[in-house]
């Protein structure tokens, strides 16, 4: 339900002040902190809406401390959120329950409105949380953090190579696509996409030989089956304080909401 696709490349890279305290936090702290906010928000029913406010406040504080402007956040979510909301906006018409109001042929249901509100708030918090992680942490250090958090090493390594070659291969694909279009290719329905399949196979074969060449280049520099690591991570006091702070604020709101 979203439209990443060719806009992918615009969404990467740090934003804000790269020297800020937030940027310098251990990636594990940021992963745990931001994803906790999302998990807490998502698991909260709409009735406890102050929890959402609390989560948004935490994210806003985080962004301010990292000097990530609202514009930078918007730039990262603008291809995702509008589509999410576009889908969610149909919910009040199809999800029945509670009161209902008729607008000509359409009927809006109260239960549907509630779902719309909850879904929108949760999707907003989740998307902005992930965007803030990306704005304050390079993807390679996110991966280092995940690896330190016992993510299977093989998955981390695949992700690292994928990320490195994403740009190369997406650009290749873009050029091939341009070459197709340049020769007047304009499919009008799903049956006319055979040329894209040819393109996909050419991409696969090129990518496969790329993989072999990269492997050769690694062997040539003494690769013996284990990726060496340059930067050990250090989880310090600032990191602990950050995680504890985020959890304290959001969890207490969540518990207060549940017991209220």
């Amino acid at each position, binding site marked *: 339900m979203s439209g990443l696709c060719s806009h992918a490349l615009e969404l990467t890279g740090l934003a804000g002040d790269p020297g800020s305290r937030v940027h310098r936090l251990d990636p594990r702290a940021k992963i745990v902190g931001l994803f906790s906010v999302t998990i807490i928000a998502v698991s909260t029913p709409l009735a406890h809406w102050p929890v959402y406010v609390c989560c948004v406040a935490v994210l806003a504080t985080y962004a301010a401390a990292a000097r990530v402007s609202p514009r930078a956040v918007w730039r990262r979510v603008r291809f995702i959120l509008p589509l999410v909301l576009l889908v969610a906006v149909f919910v009040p018409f199809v999800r029945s329950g509670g009161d209902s109001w008729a607008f000509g042929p359409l009927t809006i249901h109260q239960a549907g409105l509630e779902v719309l509100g909850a879904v929108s708030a949760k999707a907003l918090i989740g998307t902005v949380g992930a965007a803030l992680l990306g704005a304050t942490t390079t993807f390679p250090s996110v991966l280092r953090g995940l690896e330190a958090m016992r993510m299977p090493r093989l998955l981390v390594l695949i992700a690292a190579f994928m990320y490195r070659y994403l740009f190369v291969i997406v650009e290749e694909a873009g*050029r*091939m696509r*341009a070459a197709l279009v340049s*020769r*007047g290719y*304009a499919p009008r329905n799903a049956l006319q996409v055979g040329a894209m399949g*040819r393109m996909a196979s050419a991409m696969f074969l090129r990518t496969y030989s790329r993989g072999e060449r990269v492997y050769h280049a690694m062997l040539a520099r003494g690769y013996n089956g284990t990726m060496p690591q340059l930067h050990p991570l250090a989880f310090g006091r600032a990191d602990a304080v950050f995680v504890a702070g985020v959890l304290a604020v959001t969890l207490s709101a969540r518990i207060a909401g549940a017991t209220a």
Partner: protein
Amino acid sequence: MTCVVHARGLRYRYPGHEEALRGIDLRVEHGERVALLGPNGAGKTTLMMHLNGLMIGDGELEVAGLRVAKDTLTALRARVGVVFQDPDDQLFMPTVREDVAFGPLNMGLEREAVQHRVADALSRVRMAHVVDRAPYQLSMGERRRVAIATVLAMDPTLLVLDEPSANLDPRARRELLEVLETIDRTMLVTTHDLPLAAELCERAVILAGGRIVGDGPCHEILADDELLAAHDLELPAGFDLSAVATRSRPAVGAQHGT
């Protein structure tokens, strides 16, 4: 007859970046062969992408008699042939025949006419003998020439070539040059290979920082050491410009008009 390329105040900005084209004014007449020179990042590729509407910028741009805009794209792409730098980006059908037929088929031509165009285009680049081979079995020089054929088969008014001599060994480069010299189309050639420009084109345009900073007879531009140096261009050490014969300008309906 109008000129083939007519740009006035053409500007383009990649989202979130500086302007890549900052007001390009350019006329290319029928039958001209123009070398488009400039350092990396000068905007050469961006300008090229505008010529067949892969990008649409601000300002006026008319190519091959058509105003470049969304509604003219189909017609435009039949009139402007773009040969990309890496033939592997352009050739991905199972056989050379299907690759060369791809453009004419998209134009809606009859099968027979398409076959005719395939044969004709391949023979013009001296590649008729590989018609049933797979592109990946060909050498880089052969692939480059087949890539040119894929575009010639659409019978374009303007041929745009991006770095045609990149990654060619000296002999393949020579053969390519010989083929290009026999093709009587208006040509715009983006290249870092200044000797190629000197041999193939009678006019050179230097692009730098999204603007045209030099435009004139190729030999004059390439002899202007200061101009070249100012834009990170240089002839290879030991290259003697005067030793390259200026190619006579091919007389392909070179009538000038507005």
